[in-house]
């Protein structure tokens, strides 16, 4: 009963085994990849482990508040940003080993040549509410 974030990067993760950019895949390979991702989410919903899944646009803005009540300052996007999140899936599972197992499955999504991408996914536990009994 713990939530984990499976984080997928556009940039910043170590190189995957099957390292071909998506725009060089055949259309069928792209379809197969998307189907795999959808099926994966559907399967998780069925096992009662799915919480959320979202994809992010690569480009965003940087924002900070300005002094003297002026409107916020915006900047970017920066082409040189090293770490770029592509999207995530949130799962609610019984153990860390189950989270790793599922991340492994997700990482095996097919890419170029219909072969698994073997991309690196980041697995991060959620902070929870504290337990009642502590002593």
């Amino acid at each position: 009963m713990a939530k984990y974030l499976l984080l997928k990067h556009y940039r910043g993760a170590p190189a995957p085994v099957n390292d071909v950019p998506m725009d060089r895949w055949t259309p069928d390979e792209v379809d197969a990849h998307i189907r795999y991702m959808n099926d994966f989410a559907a399967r998780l919903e069925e096992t009662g482990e799915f919480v959320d899944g979202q994809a992010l646009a690569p480009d965003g803005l940087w924002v900070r508040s300005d002094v003297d009540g002026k409107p916020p300052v915006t900047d970017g996007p920066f082409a040189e940003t090293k770490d770029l999140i592509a999207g995530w899936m949130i799962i609610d599972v019984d153990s860390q080993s189950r989270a790793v197992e599922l991340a492994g499955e997700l990482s095996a999504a097919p890419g170029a040549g219909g072969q698994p991408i073997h991309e690196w996914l980041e697995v991060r536990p959620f902070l929870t509410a504290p337990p009642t009994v502590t002593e």
Partner: protein
Amino acid sequence: MIDEVALRELVPQVLNVLVRRGADFATAEDAVQDALVRALSAWEDEAPRDAKGWLVTVAWRAFLDRTRSEGARREREARFGTEPPTAEVPEVDDTLQIYFLCAHPDLTPSSAVALTLRAVGGLTTRQIAEAYLVPEATMAQRISRAKRTVERAGLEPGGDVRTVMRVLYLVFNEGYSGDVDLAAEAIRLTRQLAASIHDPEVSGLLALMLLHHARRPSRTRPDGQIVSLAEQDRSRWDAELVAEGVEVLQAALARDRLGEYQTQAAIAALHADAPRVEETDWVQIVEWYDELLRFADTPVVRLNRAVAVGEADGPGAGLAALAEVDQGVPRRVAVEAHLREGNGELRVAARLYADAARSATSTAERDHLTRQAARLNQALRDRR
């Protein structure tokens, strides 16, 4: 206004009536949930005089409806008759079977918890989903899978009261959100269990819950900050709950079949018994931890024992006890920080508090430890 708790109490009884009538557990459980959801809206102004009879009737119809699509309704009606069963069924011992079923050892902890809260606790899927912060559809799937697992296992309640207690303890101890008070719900279900099975360990678990629940008003500040046991305002502990917890515990201990939960409750009772933290009987608490090690020799128990030793015999003794605790145990670094501080090693303690904050598993704990580190670092700066 509906008395939701009174309504929830009826849920396992109604489920039991349907199952005794021959309905299969999985469909009957869905049907009772249908009836519960209907009752929550239909009874908004006024509950029917015979609430249980109403629920049985509606649940039975829902059960027949649910089987209609499978083309089996006529067969069912022939088998069971069209008249809804009467609510007059002896319930106590049978309801216990539902407890066992929902805590079946083949279930994962999270599915046992979900199924127990729905079938025994009478919560709606939405309430359970909100409490555990997952989508309702996910929770619904988790519950129906759990029921399939239980059915595959052949409906024999393979579990025993130990597995039920573990599930209830999980419900009590997990942090929660949503508008259902899961700790209170766990206490209600444990109370019911204790009333129908005479096991001193069930009483021990109930006492443990009551004694911890009594401290709840003082455990956090209004903004969510953790208040450590030593700093809690003890006048805000719920004296009635403490008294009840102590009484339940004493009756259990008198039966001379000590176990893990009774021992944990005894430790909680010793804390509850101290009007001021300085009056805590740490020597006796250490003895109870030694007892607890006989039942559950886990790194967590050893860690908590080291804290008690530190209080009973001084930080140096606590650190010596800590040296024998596994490195990887959660909260170990936080305990070491506390003991080092007591030992006057402020610089080391500040660093350890900061390390502990990084590996905390809850935001409240992380913030608490960060504050401890900040407090020591400021003290060190001021000293210069």
